């Protein structure tokens, strides 16, 4: 998947914009984090409506705590991924499946630090067919992307993302997905595509990673998870098989 960001796309505009931000005293570590409204909007304590404190079968799940996000960032991601894969009367959504915890945990490790990607300079803006050419690591893209979601929500609806109605959240995400938001920091669609791909990972990876709670992600699509053999059914018509996870190998 591509999480192309266009840091170098409009070099001139970027420089003048960076100058503006610098002059406003809102540059963090040399990296502009302002969206349309800059970073002047502080994080507010927002009341999310996602209850994910409960883990497996109502027991306390010690895995569900944060190693990367702030609590406010977590709530935005929890709300946004729930819109990407919403709960309905048939199947759980991203929030119930622990997707935001999954993303938090991934960003804290080698994936978030792009440890196995080629991150050597020089960095140039490339063509789409050449893939991601930015210097930012995924955890930085997320930090800024969340800030931009938040800024854009304030710009458009005068509220933080988690305070919006579901259809308003959808509108915000759609504008990101379709690059209708003009950002100078990260590519809006690049961030959205990254968010979408890690959402799918959180829904369907082995529960050991923090998402797919209770294997409910697998159950809703009749995916049997970790099975040692399908030899007995390979010649047969469709079978429903109770899933097992890697934990069953320990």
């Amino acid at each position, binding site marked *: 998947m591509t999480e192309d960001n266009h840091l170098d796309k409009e070099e001139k505009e970027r420089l003048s914009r960076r100058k503006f931000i610098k002059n406003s005293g809102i540059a963090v570590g040399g990296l502009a984090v302002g969206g349309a409204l800059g970073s002047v909007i502080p994080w507010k304590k927002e009341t999310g409506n996602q209850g994910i404190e409960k883990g497996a079968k109502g027991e306390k799940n010690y895995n569900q705590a944060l190693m990367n996000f702030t609590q406010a960032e977590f709530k935005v991601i929890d709300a946004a991924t729930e819109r990407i894969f919403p709960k309905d009367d048939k199947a759980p959504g991203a929030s119930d499946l622990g997707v935001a915890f999954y993303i938090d945990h991934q960003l804290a490790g080698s994936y978030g630090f792009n440890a196995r990607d080629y991150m050597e300079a020089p960095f140039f803006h490339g063509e789409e067919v050449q893939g991601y050419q930015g210097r930012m690591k995924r955890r930085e893209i997320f930090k800024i992307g969340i800030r931009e979601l938040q800024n854009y929500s304030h710009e458009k609806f005068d509220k933080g993302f988690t305070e919006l109605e579901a259809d308003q959240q959808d509108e915000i995400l759609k504008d990101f997905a379709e690059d209708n938001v003009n950002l100078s920091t990260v590519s809006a669609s690049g961030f959205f595509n990254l968010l979408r791909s890690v959402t799918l990972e959180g829904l369907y990876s082995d529960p050991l990673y923090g998402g797919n709670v209770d294997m409910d992600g697998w159950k809703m699509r009749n995916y049997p998870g970790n099975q040692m053999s*399908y030899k007995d059914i390979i010649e047969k018509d469709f079978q429903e098989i109770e899933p097992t996870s890697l934990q069953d190998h320990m």
Partner: protein
Amino acid sequence: MAKKLPKVDVVIAGVGWAGGIIAAELTKKGLNVVGLERGEERNTEDYFMVHDELRYAIRGELFQDLSKETITFRSNEKMRALPMRQYGSFLLGSGLGGAGVHWNGQTFRFLPYDFEIRSQTIDRYGKDKIPADMTIQDWGITYDELEPYFDTFEKMAGISGEENPLGPKRSDKYPTGPMLQSPQMKLFKKAAEKLGYHPYTIPSANLSEAYENPDGISRAACEYCSFCERFGCEYGAKADPVVTVIPVAKKTGKFDLRTHSWVRRVLHKDGKATGVLYTDVTTGEEIEQPADMVVLTSYVFNNVKLLLNSDIGRPYDSATGKGSIGKNYAYQVEKGDATGYFKNKKFNNFAGAGALGMTLDDFNGDNFDHSDLNFIHGGYLAMGQTGARPIQNNPIPAGSPTWGKEFKENSLNYINQTLSVYGMGASMPYQHHYLDLDPIYKDTFGDPLIRMTYDFKEQDRELAKFTAKKSREILEEMGADHIDSMDELGPYNITTYQSTHNTGGVIMGADPDTSAVNNYLQMWDMENLFVVGASAFAHNSGYNPTGTVGALAYRAAEGMLKYSKDGGLLA
């Protein structure tokens, strides 16, 4: 100052399929062989926790670490090449067994047409059929000459298969019978037969039954657990170098395998290789390993990189078409496919094996008339059943939302109700498609990266459209209620997975002016240096490449044994 070790008979750079086969064959005949592998040691026991799509298929546990080395890419010579910073189009192997560990196991023989593609195309259609910048050439070997080596490779790996009704002559049948047939495969077979085609079960390196090979290596049968592609096999049922040829080499006591050893230069003097220089990646120490014979088996990109960084051979010049190192880079045209949605049928799509599926060769090679077509060659059409793991497989009808309520409903509904048919399109070489050294970007030791210049051409666009159309027709016959198929191939994009079927760069041939190695994969310009792998392909066929890589490796090993006795150029 590099530490200099005692001289050995043979040193091999890269211990995957090609390196493993050569190590086994040469040590069996008493030669002392050092195998240098920059990755780590691997065993079947490593795969106790292998059923993990995220770790292996998405994060690429078994792939080359791109932070240490990648390639750079540009579509044409006017563009600035930029590094492939993350995986996409192809998945490079690393560690003992190389990409031979994480392959699917689909094992084909290239066609007689492939090895004589230029002559046969001109014979049948005239010279004008070949575009001026398409640099196809005969391989300097025929199918009949290569046939015994195909047979050897198939018996070593225990390939499970049935006769291909349109296949070339075989000296023997497959050593094990075909894989089991799922209802999906039966549906494909019936539809293809009804259309007058000649379907057969994909020849598979995932064993259909327990098998002992001629080297005395016994392996268990495949369990159809669906974790082949991008994974190692916890049963040893999928043939890979670690469970087949490497133990044979080790057992001789003549094979000195050194992992964590990154070969950086081929050393040479007065036109002969004298050994290799490598770095111990755990200590950074530089070590010289002298040898009578040097063998490069380090995948397409590193074979080319090692030659160019060592000043061996004549670098390819795309302006004149002269020179050979880096010439004729080719790939695979695999996007010409179709997906069928079935309203009232459900399949066990989660189950499968890397090489499970049905295929047909009615539109491969020159098995059909190209007089009125704007392309040459073709590709097999197939329906594979590798096992649809859930992160990567969420089929939804084209044009429907990719997130939100409707995406959720569609993806949950269709997951076990879709089947895909695809073409394994052949890839022709062109004058301006090649590999050379990047002028800017370096690997972790400061050596220049390989730069790839490549894009799809009219030939590829036409071929992909053709295979997409044929795939659609088969799905129609299979009774799909809705079918999406590829409309336009678009430009080559390095971010979307296609196949790890990179070929060329050190191509074989009969003429030292137009090829780098002879038909024993011996360097024309350096007789004690052999360069083995898909780097020797003068173009890529409409098949997965490993079967042909294996055959060429056995052929090269035979050449090395001859050379060790008599010396001189072998062809």
